[in-house]
C-alpha cells in the first residue's frame, strides 16, 4: 500500500489539524474534570482499558498475521472468536460431567481446549473453501467472501446452537475473587485475561522470530513465489497462520465469556472491528504493533467513555476517529514497515 503525499489537498490537512487541536483542548478540559473527579477513577478506567486490550490483542494478532501473509482482511475472524466462545460453552454444557464443573482447574482447561478446537476447525474450513479458491482473484472478491462468511457464521450459531438467539450465560470458570492493586480493583478472571494475552503474544513473537516455521511464515509473507523456490509450501504455511490466529481467538473467546458471564452471537462483530483497528494502528504485519495497538484501543474506549462528551454512547466513535487520523497521517501504523510496494 503506497502512500501518496502529493494527493492530499491542503484543505484536508487543515481540517485534520483543526480536529486534532480540538481534541487536545477537550482533553485539557477533561483533565480538569479528572483532577476533581478523582485519580482513583482514572486508574480504574485505565485498568479496565487494559483488560479490554487483552481480549482485543489476542484477536488482533490473528488479523495481523493473516493480512501479513495473504493481504486479506479476514472479516470473519471476529466470528471465529465468537465461535470459540460458544465452543467453550458447549464443552461446559455437554462434555463436562456435573461433578467437575465446579473445579475450575479441570473445567477451564477443558473449555479452553474445546474453544480452540472449534475455532481452529472453522478457520481451516474457511480458508480451504472460501479463501483458497480466490487466491488470485481481484481484491474485491475475497473481501466480499469474508463478509459473507461472517454473516453466515453469525446466523449459523443463532439458528443451530440451542437458544443462541439471546445471550447465553457463561460460567466464571476461575477463582471468584477480587484483587486489589492499590486503588485499582480487578477480578481474578480479568487478571487472568491480561496475563494470558501477554504471555501468548510473547510466545507467538518468539516462535515467529526463532523457529523454522516462523521463518517460513515471514518468508511467505514477503513473496510467495520466492518462498516456494526456497522449498516452502505456501499453502501449508497459510493454513498454519490461520490455525494459530484461530487458536488465539478461541482462547480469547473463552476467557471473554468467563469474564463477562454472557456470550451472544453478536460479540464477534464489534470486537472484531476493534481488533482490526488495533492491528492497523499498530502497523499491519507487526505482532508487537497489534498487541500495543490493542491496549491503546482499549484505553481509548474506556477513557473516552468516561471523559469525553457523549460518554459511553460515543466511545467507539473516538476509536474510529483515531483510526481515520492514523490512516491519513501514518498509514503504516506505529510499528509497521513504511512502504512495502504491493501490486
Amino acid at each position: 500500500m503506497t502512500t501518496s503525499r502529493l494527493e492530499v489537498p491542503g484543505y484536508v490537512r487543515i481540517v485534520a489539524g483543526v480536529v486534532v487541536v480540538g481534541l487536545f483542548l477537550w482533553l485539557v478540559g477533561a483533565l480538569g474534570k479528572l483532577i476533581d473527579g478523582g485519580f482513583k477513577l482514572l486508574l480504574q478506567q485505565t485498568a479496565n482499558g487494559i483488560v479490554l486490550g487483552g481480549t482485543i490483542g489476542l484477536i488482533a494478532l490473528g488479523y495481523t498475521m493473516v493480512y501479513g501473509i495473504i493481504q486479506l482482511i479476514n472479516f470473519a475472524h471476529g466470528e471465529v472468536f465468537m465461535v470459540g466462545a460458544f465452543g467453550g460453552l458447549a464443552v461446559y454444557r455437554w462434555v463436562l460431567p456435573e461433578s467437575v464443573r465446579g473445579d475450575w482447574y479441570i473445567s477451564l482447561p477443558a473449555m479452553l481446549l474445546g474453544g480452540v478446537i472449534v475455532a481452529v476447525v472453522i478457520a481451516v474450513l474457511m480458508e480451504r473453501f472460501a479463501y483458497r479458491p480466490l487466491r488470485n482473484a481481484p481484491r474485491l472478491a475475497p473481501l466480499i467472501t469474508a463478509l459473507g462468511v461472517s454473516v453466515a457464521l453469525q446466523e449459523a450459531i443463532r439458528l443451530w446452537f440451542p437458544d443462541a438467539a439471546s445471550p447465553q450465560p457463561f460460567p466464571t470458570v476461575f477463582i471468584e475473587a477480587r484483587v486489589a492493586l492499590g486503588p485499582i480493583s480487578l477480578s481474578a478472571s480479568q487478571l487472568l485475561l491480561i496475563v494470558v494475552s501477554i504471555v501468548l503474544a510473547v510466545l507467538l513473537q518468539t516462535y515467529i522470530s526463532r523457529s523454522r516455521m516462523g521463518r517460513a511464515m515471514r518468508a511467505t509473507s514477503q513473496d510467495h513465489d520466492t518462498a516456494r523456490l526456497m522449498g516452502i509450501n505456501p499453502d501449508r504455511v497459510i493454513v498454519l497462520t490461520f490455525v494459530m490466529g484461530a487458536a488465539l481467538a478461541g482462547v480469547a473467546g473463552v476467557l471473554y465469556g468467563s469474564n463477562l458471564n454472557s456470550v451472544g452471537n453478536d460479540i464477534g462483530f464489534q470486537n472484531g472491528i476493534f481488533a482490526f483497528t488495533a492491528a492497523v494502528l499498530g502497523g499491519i504485519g507487526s505482532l508487537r504493533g497489534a498487541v500495543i495497538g490493542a491496549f491503546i484501543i482499549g484505553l481509548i474506549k474506556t477513557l473516552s467513555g468516561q471523559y469525553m462528551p457523549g460518554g459511553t454512547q460515543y466511545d467507539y466513535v473516538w476509536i474510529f476517529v483515531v483510526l481515520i487520523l492514523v490512516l491519513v497521517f501514518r498509514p503504516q501504523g506505529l510499528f509497521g514497515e513504511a512502504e512495502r510496494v504491493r501490486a
Partner: protein
Amino acid sequence: MSRLNGLIPAALARPFTAIGGVLFLIAAMLPWATFILNDGAYPEKSTLQFFDAPFELTGFRWHLLLFGLLALIVTFAPIPGKNRVLGALGWGGGLIGAVGAAFIAGKGGGIGAITAADGTIAMGSIVAIVAGALLKIGSAATGPGDIPEWPTSLFGWTGMKQRLEAWVYLLVAFAGVLWLVAQTLTAGGIGGAAFPYAGPVFIAFLGFAGGLLGALHGIGLTRWVSQLSEKHRPFSIVVLLLCAFALPFPFTGAGSQYWMQVAATIGVYAATAIGLNIVVGLSGLLDLGYVAFMGIGAFVAANLSGVAASALGWNLPFPLAALIAAVVAGILGAIVGSPTLRVRGDYLAIVTLAFGEIFSRAAQNDIGDLTGGASAMPGIPPVSMFGTAFNEPINLLGAELPSGVLYYFMIVLVVALVMAVFANLKNSRMGRAWIAIREDEDAARAMGIRTGKAKILAFLVGATLAGLAGAIFVHKLGTASYDSFKFLESVTLLAAVILGGMGTIPGAVLGASLLFVLPEKLREFSDYRLFVFGLALVLIMRFRPQGLVPDRIRRAEFAGETAEGKSIEAVEEQAVLEQEQSEREPGAPAGPKEGRS
C-alpha cells in the same frame, strides 16, 4: 461449466437432448406429489394421475411442457446457437424440477412424497431433474458455440422503413419485458396463510423465466434487441418509461397496493444501488458505509418536512426538501471522501465502515436532536403535489389505480433520472477517469488524471444520489428511524451491486430487485434469510464474481471472456495458431501479425 464440455462424444449429443426434451414432456404430465400435503394440495394439481387431462396443465407444469416442446424443436431444427439454447432450457427446467422435489419432499416428510408411496407413483419432479441434466450435458457436448449475430433489419430495409421496423420490434420486445416483469412480481401471489406455496411457485417461475431468457440470449435475440435499442435510444427510453408507467394498470395483474409498494421499494433501492455503482462499480472504491448517505438524506428531508418530532420546525415543499437533502448528503460525501484519498482497497473498506458506524451511533443517540434517536421521527406527511396526497388511490384513464401508485410513478422518474446521470457520467471524461482509477490507480495518475479530485467527485455524486433516494424513501415510509440504516443495509446494497454486475445499470437494478423481492416472496424462510444471504455472497464470489449482467471489462477480468462470450484463452490460442500458420507459409508478411482481436 466448461467442465461439462465434451463429457460425451458429439454423436450422442442429439439423442441426449432429444430424450431430455421428451422427458420434460412426460414430467409435465406425471403427478408430482403422492398425496395431498398437510397444508393443502400442492398447486397445479400435482397429484394428478398419469396423463390425466393433459390439456389442463397450468403453472409450472405448463412451463415444463413448453420447454420440452422447445427442446425437441431446437434439437432437430437447424437453429443457430442451439447448444446455448438447450443449455438454458436444461437449467431452467432442471431448476423447476429441483424446487418441486425439494419442497414437496420437505413438506411431505420424506422422499416417498415424490417417488412412490401407498400405491401411488409420482416421479414428476425427479424426471424433470434428470431431463434437465440430460439437456445440459447434451448441449455441452460440442461446446457452447458462438452467439449468432442478427442483421439490423430483418427484411433488408433501409432508411425510414428500417427505423419504423426497428420501432415495432422494440415495442414488442419491451411489451414482452413488461409482461415478464409483471408475471415475476406476481408469481405465486401474495402468499401467506391462504396460499402457503408462494415461495416455491415463485422460484419455479424464476426457473422458467431464467430458462426462457437464457434461450433467447442463446439465439442472439437479446443482444440484437439491445443493439437496436442502442441505435434508437430516445425511442427506447420513451417506450421503457411508458411500460414502467403501465405496470400499475389492472391488465398487468400487478395493480394492487401491495405490489405497488414492493415495486416502489425496489425503485428506491435500485436508485441507491446505481449511486453505489458509481463509487464501487466505476471507481472501484469499496464503500461499506454507503447507507449512511441515504440516512443523511432521509433525516434532512424529514426535518424539513414539518414533522412533529423535528427540532427545526420548518415545512418545505417536497421537491425543495429532497433537493436540500441530496445536496447535504453530497457535501458530507465529499467530506467523508477526503481522508480516504490516501488509503486503498481493504483499508478504504474499513474506513468507510467506520463512517457508517459513526453515523449509525450518532443517529441512534439523537445527535443535535435531528434524528429522534430511539423514538424515531414518525408522522412524516405524505408528499402532496398537484393537489393529491401521494398515498391516495387515483383514477387515471378510466382505471382505478391503488394507493401508493403516485409514489411509484415518482420513483420511476427518479430512477430514470439517476440512470441518465449514470450513463452520461460513464461515457464522459470523468467516467473514463474513474474506470482508469479502478483498473490501476498509479497508471492513471501517470496519465495525468487528478485522482484525488476524481475520487472525491465519485463520493460526492454517489452520496447525492443516495441522499435523494433517502429523502423519497422516508416520505413514502412515513417514519425516519435509525433502524433503517444499519450496516446490514450497506452490505445488502453492496451485494446487490455485485450480484447484478458492477458498472452496469441493468445490473444494479436487477441486483436490487432480486435482493429485495426474494425475501419478500420467500417470507416463510425468513428465519434462514441472513444465513442464506451470507452463503450466497460466498458462492457468488466463487462461481460468478462478474455478476449477472457484467460489463465488458469485468467480464474479461473475472470470467476470462470477451464481449461475444468467447473465452479469452481460446481467442488467444486462435490468434497464436493463425500467426504460426502465416509464418509457415512462404509468402508470409514480415514481422508478427496483429494477434489481438
